C-alpha cells in the first residue's frame, strides 16, 4: 500500500558535500550572491558569532556620534530599543544573519548594544522549564 520502500535505517544521509566540485551550486540552490558588500567584506564578527536566539539591546549612549555608521546600524539601534533576537533583527532588516552578526558586532565594539546569549547550547532545560513550556502552550 505504500508507494515506496520503508525507510532504511541509517539512510544515505550525507551531512556535508564532498570534494570541491561545487555541485550544490545549481539552479535549485538559489542565487549566487556576494553578500558582504554591506560589511565592507568582513565575513566574521570580531568576537565570534552571536547565537540566532541571542538577544540584542540598544544601550543608552546619548553622547554617541552615529555619523559614521550605516543606515543599517541605525535601524538595528532603533529595533533593539526593546530586546530582540538576532534572528528577528535579521528578518526585520531583510538581511542575511551573517551580515547582521557583523553589523551588531560593530555596535557592540563601541558599546552601543549589549547582547545576551540564551542558555548554553546542548544543555537541555530542566523539567521545570519544560513543564512551563507545556503549561504555556496549553493555556494559549
Amino acid at each position, binding site marked *: 500500500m505504500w508507494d515506496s520502500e520503508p*525507510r532504511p535505517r541509517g539512510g544515505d544521509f550525507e551531512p556535508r558535500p564532498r570534494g570541491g566540485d561545487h555541485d550544490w551550486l545549481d539552479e535549485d540552490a538559489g542565487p*549566487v550572491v556576494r553578500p558582504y558588500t554591506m560589511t565592507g567584506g568582513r565575513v566574521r564578527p570580531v568576537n565570534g558569532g552571536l547565537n*540566532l536566539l541571542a538577544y540584542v539591546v540598544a544601550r543608552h549612549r546619548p553622547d*554617541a556620534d552615529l555619523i559614521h555608521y550605516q543606515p543599517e546600524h541605525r535601524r538595528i539601534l532603533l529595533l533593539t530599543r526593546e530586546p530582540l*533576537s538576532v534572528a528577528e533583527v535579521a528578518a526585520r532588516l531583510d538581511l542575511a544573519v*551573517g551580515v547582521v552578526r557583523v553589523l551588531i558586532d560593530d555596535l557592540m565594539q563601541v558599546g552601543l548594544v549589549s547582547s545576551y546569549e540564551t542558555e548554553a547550547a546542548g544543555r537541555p*532545560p530542566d523539567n521545570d522549564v519544560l513543564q512551563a513550556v507545556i503549561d*504555556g502552550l496549553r493555556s494559549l
Partner: protein
Amino acid sequence: MDYGRSKSVRIPLALKILVAGGFGVGKTTLVGAVSEIMPLQTEEQLTHASVAIDDVSGVEGKVTTTVAMDFGRITLTDDLVLYLFGTPGQDRFWFLWEELALGALGAVVMADTRRLPDCFPSVDYFERSGTPFLVAVNCFFGEQRHSPQKVREALDLDPDVPVVLFDARNRQDGKRVLVSLVEHIRDRGSRRRAAAPA
C-alpha cells in the same frame, strides 16, 4: 538621537523547536498557525557551514548560496519565549546549517503519507544527532490514509518516538503537536536520568 532605555532590561529565556520535513509538507503553515507573529524569513549563507569554496582566496572572491527559513514566535510568559524554525525549502541543504539544530529543544518532523520518503532525511538527521523529535502526519483536508502505527512501521521509528496525526492549518492541532513534543522531551529526559548510574 536617543536610542536608550530607562527601565532595566529583561531578557526572556528563548527556546527553539525545529519544524522539518519534505518540501510542501506544510512546515510554514504550521509555523504560521501557532505563531503570534506572521512567519518571518531569514537567510544564512552556506559559507558558515564550512562549504566555502576553498580554492578561491579572499573575501571578494568568495561566492556562496543562501538558505532561507521561516520562523515564528510564541511568547509563553514574560520570561519564556518559544521560537519555531521551519527548515529551509531547499531540503537537501538545510542540514548543512548546523546552527539550526544546535541547541534546539527538539523537532517536529512533518510527514505526508502520499510522499513519505520526503521525511526520511529529517528522521535520519535527528536520530543521528540525538535531537528528540516526533513525527506529525499532516492530514491534508482531513485525509487520513494510514494509521500512526503504519507510519511508525514504515519509518522504522524507535518505540518511544511519538507519531501524531494533525492538520497543520489548525492552531489547536499545532499546539497539541508542540505539547506532545515537549512532553516527549520531558519524559525522555526523566527516563535517561532514571537509567543513569547514580
